[in-house]
C-alpha cells in the first residue's frame, strides 16, 4: 500500500507519522488499513516487529485507530499527523 515515490493522486493520502524516533512523511492509499501504516512505520523506525503498536490522530490522542479499519473510514485527510505509540510489553 505504501507508495512514497509515485506522484500523488486522488486516491492517496500523504501522512506524517510521528514517533519517539522522529517524523516520517509517507503516502498511502485512502483504502489502506491502519495496520498497513503501523507496519510501515514500525519498519521505517526500525522498531521491534514483535511489539504491539497503536496509531492515534495527533488531534485526538485519546482515540486509537482500529488496525482493521481503513484510513478513509476515519476521514483522515491529506497532511494529517498520526502518532505511533508503543503499547509496551507486559512481562
Amino acid at each position, binding site marked *: 500500500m505504501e507508495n512514497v515515490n509515485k506522484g500523488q493522486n486522488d486516491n492517496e493520502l500523504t501522512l506524517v507519522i510521528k*514517533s*519517539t*524516533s522522529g517524523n516520517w512523511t509517507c503516502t498511502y492509499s485512502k483504502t489502506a488499513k491502519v495496520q498497513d501504516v503501523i507496519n510501515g512505520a514500525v519498519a521505517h523506525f526500525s*522498531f*521491534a516487529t514483535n*511489539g504491539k503498536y*497503536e496509531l*492515534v490522530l*495527533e*488531534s485526538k*490522542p*485519546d*482515540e*486509537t485507530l482500529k488496525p482493521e479499519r481503513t484510513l478513509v473510514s476515519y476521514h483522515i485527510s491529506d497532511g494529517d499527523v498520526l*502518532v505511533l*505509540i*508503543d*503499547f*509496551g*510489553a*507486559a*512481562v
Partner: protein
Amino acid sequence: MSVDRNITLLRIKKEIVPCLEYGSKCGWIFSDIDESDLSFLVKMKSPVDDEEYQIEVILDDYPELPPFLDFIEIDTGKKGTKKAYPKSRDSFFHPTLPCICNPCSRKSYKSFNNGAPHQDWNMIGWQQNSKVRSLTNLEAILKAIYLRICIDGEYLGRMEK
C-alpha cells in the same frame, strides 16, 4: 549516585520537552521538576471512565538506571497502593507491589526491591533488555502509560476501588 546529577538534570530537561508538547494535547498536568531529588509528577485522566491518575517519576542515576515510576493516590498522597494504580488486561500494571512491570520501571527489579517480580533483569543496560522495546525515554514511557488508560477493554479501571 553514579550519574552526575547535573547530567541527569540536563537529560530530564531535554526529554521533558516532547512530553510537555504531547501532554498538552492529552490534558496531562506536570509539576515542576524537583531538582533536589530529580523528580516530577504528572497527572493523566482516563477518557474511558474519567479516573485521574498521578504518576511520580524519580530519575536519580537516569539514564544509567531506569526511571522509578509509581502511582500516587491524589486524594490521600499515599504512594504505590493498588488504589493509586490503574488495572490493565495484561500485567503491565502488575498487582505485585504494585508496579509497572516493564524494564523501563525500576520498581519492577528485584535488585531494587526484594518484593519486585523480576530477578531475571539487570538495571544496568536496561535499554538493551529486549522486553523494553522502544520504552527507553520519558516520552515513550508516558505515552505508553497514557495509551493504556485510554483503550477500553485494555484498561479495566482502578486496580482497587
